[in-house]
């Protein structure tokens, strides 16, 4: 359990500095992500299931999927241990949360979205650490 807790902190450390697509704040500052919203379960030898629940600031569908995309991309790039990732909107925070959850957990949809130059640019700006 201690290992899982450490891993959760590692995850949170990576996602908390992601910038919100609209506001000049990090997801942590806006409380879009919290330490409590990160769950890690060991599923194999050095492999973990990471579950993130986030709360978008506004109930706007495209922004929520954008945040979901940022979370996925940054973790894909920065998380050093083997993992499977699930991202969900915190229950009760959005009217179309099931729709959003389905999209952001569909790897084909995520891959296709990242090929969209406009979307990609926004995501890059949100996830890139300032120098």
């Amino acid at each position, binding site marked *: 359990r201690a290992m899982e807790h450490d891993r959760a902190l590692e995850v949170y450390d990576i996602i908390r500095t992601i910038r919100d697509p609209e506001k000049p704040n990090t997801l942590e500052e806006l409380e879009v992500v919290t330490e409590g919203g990160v769950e890690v*379960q*060991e*599923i*194999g*030898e050095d492999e973990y299931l990471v579950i993130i629940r986030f709360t978008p600031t506004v109930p706007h569908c495209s922004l929520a999927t954008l945040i979901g995309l940022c979370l996925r991309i940054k973790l894909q790039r920065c998380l050093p241990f083997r993992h*499977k990732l699930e991202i969900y909107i915190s229950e009760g925070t959005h009217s179309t949360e099931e729709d959003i959850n*389905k999209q952001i*957990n*569909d790897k*084909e*949809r995520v*891959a*296709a979205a990242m*090929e969209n130059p406009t979307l990609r640019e926004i995501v890059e700006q949100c996830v890139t650490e300032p120098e």
Partner: protein
Amino acid sequence: LSGRGCGGVELSGLWGRGSERGELQPNCSGWTCRAVLGDGHQRTVRRVAWSPCGSYLASASFDGTTCVWKRHEDEFECVATLEGHENEVKSVAWAPSGSLLATCSRDKSVWVWEVDEEEEYECVSVLNAHTQDVKHVVWHPSQELLASASYDDTVRLYREEEDDWVCCASLEGHESTVWAVAFEKGGERLASVSDDRTLRIWRRYNPGNQEGIACNGSDPTWKCVCTLSGYHSRTIYDVSWCHLTGALATACGDDAIRVQLHQGWAALSMKQFPQYPINPSSVTLHCSASVLRTSVEAEPSRRNRPRVSFSRHMSLMALAVFPVSFLE
């Protein structure tokens, strides 16, 4: 044969000629890269499919187009670019006759294309049966019957009617995106796999069937006769039904390949999950003969012996849960 993410199609082939040695890749014994079709697409190539005759290759891309390449030894010439889908094309498949092609897309539609002797391609139908992204299309092994799998959690079947194509069945039951489908060799069964982590087998009941299943006019009815759950721990992305041996293989997001062999299921690459033990106590296999259901639960204490309740109408079902087999 592989699709490549940067827009190219890379072709590998196994040949017997020794002069190709210079191109040999160190880890692929016997396989050499024969051609790279780099200029066909502007985005990810998602699927490739050889025509039944082997002379043509179709490639479906996220750029919204499907290219058809004609093979001249190691040279490939793009003989057609099929346009029309509004966004990413996810799958392409040739009908056994070789004169029909099907494509599907995130635009929710399935297109049927016809090719004539002059290698001219024409769209003969745009099918809008699905309400969401269509992931996969596959043809029946011997009939001109088309199946599609979708993000809308259903599998749809289509056939030709007069001069157009119509959706003749909607297979409902999965609780999330259906990623792939595969027909059994005889075409009387269909396997589907889903984000809901189950594998389902659907059986075809033709009009006038002896089980007394009602049919709509001359169209067969498809019923889900088997659901395998609790065995795959993540999304199942692909399924393949071997026409030679009847073996069913699944590709899963938990990094494992599972194959149903003659007598049961075996995991080729095993992973231990605390919540999904290899000898699961929670695998449930719901199988039915006609419309009746039997629930089977594996008991770890009774090694590989299921608790099965039979109805007197059941004529089948030798079951051993993990390993599991289902027969009708």
